[in-house]
């Protein structure tokens, strides 16, 4: 997939801008607060994924009611003209070749991107919710039919929690329906966990390779952490998620909630399940020290960033393999956080990853990225500076 050009109208600090993009690495430079990230954000929206960092209302330029985005995308032999109108409170409309799509999410089936910015550090450093969301979003990118799964799960959980909270305290005979919600919880929860385990297993080999390369040796380990899945389950999980893993997981979740029924009733909420699971990220203590340490607690800020980057690049690799097409790579301000060696490595790595948009406030990044195209951004205006300088 390749984006030929992007047009922005009333988007963030852009009144109107037209940007031509080159096929390989596009470097976006400029001082702080000029609109570099906003340009990446616009491209992310155009791939049907919404903003990676803010609500719709923040995307519209002050004083305007809606923001317009257009892009010309080449996918295989197809030329797709993508039009998008972001109307806060009234939803987002998307058209492909002037034909309306049922929802802006439907766009992601045709165009996909992987975004990495400063906030993605939370993938390693932040709360478990960010890591669960990372897996769940990857599940939908790989298997769009799973799109309602997380929402359905949240709905079932909310209903069950409500029942646990109210039933024991009221005279109602609603408690017998807990069995029914247990069954829903186990079925949907197991499907969600099975999908996560499948994605994590597929992601792991790519993450290993990327981390080893960027850190110059050393190992990264990813493990699904859950209080209700049997320790020795991992191998079975690699079977078919729908017919092998999900039914087995549903059984485990059922046994788990049966055991703690009384405690759940006392606390008035669901205490185990995918909503409490996590992914642990561990890194090798040193090149000569094989001990694995939890990255969240023991790793340096630089190593945390490197491992988060490895996860995102691995996501790009996995999507490239499974979707038979390279997703657009969006890297927001990553060079500034890396030492010269890792910076060089990243610059080399992205050159073989298809089209990329890379933003940087640092002049040094220009050399590392050896970009096909440099776009200078100042005060909400984007100018293609110099073509191919490498």
């Amino acid at each position, binding site marked *: 997939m390749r984006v030929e050009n992007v047009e922005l109208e009333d988007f963030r600090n852009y009144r109107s801008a037209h940007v031509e993009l080159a096929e390989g690495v596009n470097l976006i430079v400029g001082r702080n607060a000029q609109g570099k990230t906003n340009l990446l954000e616009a491209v992310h929206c155009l791939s049907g994924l919404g903003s990676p960092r803010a609500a719709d209302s923040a995307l519209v330029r002050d004083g305007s009611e809606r923001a317009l985005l257009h892009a010309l995308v080449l996918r295989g032999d197809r030329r797709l003209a993508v039009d998008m109108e972001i109307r806060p409170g009234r939803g987002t409309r998307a058209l492909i070749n002037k034909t309306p799509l049922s929802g802006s999410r439907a766009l992601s089936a045709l165009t996909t991107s992987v975004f990495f910015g400063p906030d993605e550090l939370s993938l390693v450093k932040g709360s478990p919710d960010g890591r669960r969301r990372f897996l769940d979003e990857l599940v939908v990118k790989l298997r769009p039919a799973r799109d309602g799964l997380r929402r359905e799960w949240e709905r079932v959980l909310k*209903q069950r929690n409500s029942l646990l909270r109210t039933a024991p305290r009221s005279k109602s005979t609603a408690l017998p329906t807990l069995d029914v919600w247990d069954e*829903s919880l186990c079925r949907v929860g197991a499907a969600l966990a099975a999908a996560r385990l499948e994605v994590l297993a597929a992601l792991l080999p790519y993450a290993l390779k990327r981390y080893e390369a960027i850190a110059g040796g050393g190992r990264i380990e990813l493990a699904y952490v859950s209080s209700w899945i049997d320790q020795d389950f991992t191998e079975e999980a690699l079977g078919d998620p729908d017919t092998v893993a999900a039914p087995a997981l549903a059984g485990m979740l059922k046994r788990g909630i049966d055991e703690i029924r009384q405690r759940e009733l006392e606390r008035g909420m669901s205490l185990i399940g995918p909503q409490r699971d996590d992914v642990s990220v561990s890194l090798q203590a040193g090149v000569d020290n094989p001990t694995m340490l939890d990255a969240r607690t023991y790793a340096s800020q630089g190593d945390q960033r490197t491992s988060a980057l490895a996860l995102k690049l691995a996501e790009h690799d996995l999507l490239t393999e499974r979707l038979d097409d390279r997703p657009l790579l969006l890297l927001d301000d990553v060079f500034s956080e890396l030492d010269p060696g890792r910076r060089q490595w990243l610059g080399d790595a992205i050159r073989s990853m298809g089209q990329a948009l890379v933003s940087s406030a640092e002049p040094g990044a220009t050399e590392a990225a050896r970009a096909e195209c440099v776009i200078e951004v100042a005060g909400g205006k984007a100018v293609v500076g110099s073509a191919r300088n490498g």
Partner: protein
Amino acid sequence: MFAGPLQRLVDELSKLPGIGPKSAQRVAFYILKISGAEARSLTEAIVEVKDRVRLCERCFNVADTELCEFCRDSRRDSTVICVVQEPPDIIAIERTREYRGLYHVLQGAISPIEGVGPDDLRIKELLARIHRPAEGNEPVIEVIVATNPNTEGDATAMYLDRLLSPLGLRVTRLASGLPVGGDLEYADEVTLGRALGGRRRMSP
């Protein structure tokens, strides 16, 4: 704020489902413009629907007599009961003209968030119909659960299955899948995924 009676009308209208303050204002000003006869006809329609329309004593569909048109109709197959959440669901199924059995309206679905449990639905009455068929009706053989295909509808269906299957009844659930006559290309992924999961072998 408007003069007393007008504001009262706006307030009353904005209590209606799907009508916000702005729509309520629009409707109120429209009513202000219509003739006295039209206004009286509207109020009479509202009062009449409250006076004359009630729920069928057997199936809880809307009716203007003790029994609704389906429960009164002796030509319908009384061995099958189709369970729905609300009366409009019956109209949807009737439009198919494929179903000749009877109905039972639950008047909702199990939803702890909204404080709706099995006791708030017409489930006891359904059991009574199954245990003691009304005069002239055959014993029930099949119950078709046609609750909505969402979290609450599915939970209600599961609850009914657990309750009714032990009685030796055939409990069935509507299939979910693709709209007929449409293009596969335009089906959303979730529906298509479900249809794929529930695929059937063509020749037995």
